[in-house]
């Protein structure tokens, strides 16, 4: 069973289709159209710093709201009986199995000025609110699409907490609030961290949600990259430079997250 040869086909595959493509992104980022070395692309990325700020900001808001909304639900689910837990987790995961384009499209229908939500608001006498094509709508789309990624890891950490520890704390005279703050919450931190990562990374780099719910005026990093490769401003060199900066940013974020992630070995994120 100690045969390293078994991994060779896989190593060749990953080199060809993961390492080489990444090297190509780096190569394109540092060259111009004729293939000569240049730093022009990277300095141009600076002009788009607004887009980076917006993406990080909206991604962070979406992540924070997902955490605030998702944690209590994960906690409630973890309290139930095993049967109940299974059903509830199924229900959380079910929407995720629908294609995210369809889910986002559904929100278009709901949020429009003459959409269902506004019609309902008007029917009960409240005024219409403009929701579609705003930053709020983009954040909502992110939360909707990624909140299951927040709930699931938190839930799975919570269920693994040894009940006897909680009982011990109670025996020592801690009330419910203290038990939660001093025992349960600290122990669920790894789940929270992986939840944050799993929401933040896709939220920052999304490119369809802002197109569908943000009206194209709320450009995000993903849209900017798409624009350079298959969109309205063909420039793969600049696109690669933007991708490279995005990648570096995400890897640093992952590194930060991993620092909180003690003792987690091969199951966690990248080991940086």
């Amino acid at each position: 069973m100690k045969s390293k040869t078994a991994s060779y086909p896989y190593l060749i595959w990953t080199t060809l289709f993961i390492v080489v493509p990444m090297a190509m992104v780096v190569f394109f980022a540092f060259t111009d159209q004729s293939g000569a070395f240049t730093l022009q692309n990277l300095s141009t990325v600076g002009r788009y710093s607004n887009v980076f700020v917006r993406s990080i900001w909206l991604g962070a808001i979406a992540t924070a709201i997902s955490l605030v909304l998702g944690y209590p639900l994960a906690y409630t689910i973890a309290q139930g009986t095993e049967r109940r837990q299974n059903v509830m987790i199924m229900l959380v995961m079910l929407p995720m199995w629908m294609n995210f384009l369809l889910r986002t499209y559904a929100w278009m229908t709901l949020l429009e000025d003459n959409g269902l939500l506004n019609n309902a608001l008007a029917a009960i006498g409240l005024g219409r609110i403009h929701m579609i094509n705003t930053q709020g709508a983009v954040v909502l789309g992110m939360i909707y699409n990624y909140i299951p990624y927040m709930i699931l890891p938190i839930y799975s950490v919570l269920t693994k907490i040894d009940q006897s520890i909680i009982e011990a704390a109670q025996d020592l005279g801690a009330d419910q609030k203290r038990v939660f703050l001093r025992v349960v919450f600290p122990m669920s931190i790894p789940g929270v961290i992986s939840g944050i990562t799993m929401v933040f990374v896709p939220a920052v780099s999304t490119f369809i949600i802002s197109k569908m719910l943000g009206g194209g005026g709320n450009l995000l990093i993903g849209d900017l990259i798409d624009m350079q490769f298959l969109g309205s401003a063909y420039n793969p060199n600049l696109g690669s430079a933007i991708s490279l900066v995005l990648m570096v940013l995400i890897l640093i974020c992952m590194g930060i997250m991993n620092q909180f992630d003690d003792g987690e070995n091969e199951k966690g994120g990248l080991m940086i």
Partner: protein
Amino acid sequence: MKIASKVYTAFLFLFLYAPIVVLVVFSFNASSTRTMWGGFSMRWYEKLVQDQMLLLALRNTLLIAVISAALATALGTVAAIGINAYKGIARKMIMNVTKFPMVNPEIVTGVSMMLLFVFATRLFGDSSLGMGSLIIAHTTFCLPYVVLSVMPKLNQMDSHLYEAAQDLGCPPVCAFFKVVFPEIMPGIVTGLIMAFTLSIDDFVISYFTSGTTQTLPIYIYSMTRKRISPEINALSTVLFGVILLLLLVINLRKTKDKKAEVEK
């Protein structure tokens, strides 16, 4: 406290399911507007089954999913066994590369593969991206999930079993299939299912590597870029129904398995 948490749960599930309910309800709408109810009708479903492009996209999606899931599972399982033989820094390095596609933003993965494929097509004459590039791309992003679901099973396994089988005269390949394979089977199946669903659902990476081929998510995307027809609602409803059914079947089987285990 109890009531508050119930209300809260109900609220969140409303948030999660309201859009889906809307999609389903309006798929039966006789009128073609998205927000006005015009009576019950099945016309969008009729249109759906007549849509040749859609059926072609569905065929492509399933074909790609089956091939790339199988490929990823085979490659990933063998790889997990090989990686298990590494120790220390080398192992760490390999695991980092393995996990890279999971960590890297999807759009960057998609773009990088597009660069590679376009470069390759230019190198080997002017063929087009399409099924081939899609299968390679899907296999690549499914691989880490297979490796990571097989590895823990391998670690749990008692390595002496394999040696014992060999001592008893089993050649290595035979020992693998008789001893190791049954042990890591659950991990392989999990990996296979994950790879299959990930492949069916993928849009971002396919978008960059599809060339002229359309998969279902790409077709859905082009539907949302045009005058929207409630056909898309009908499609969502059908997909949702299929997923619901599949999950129910899987879960029923799981509970059955558990019961069987208990009886053992």
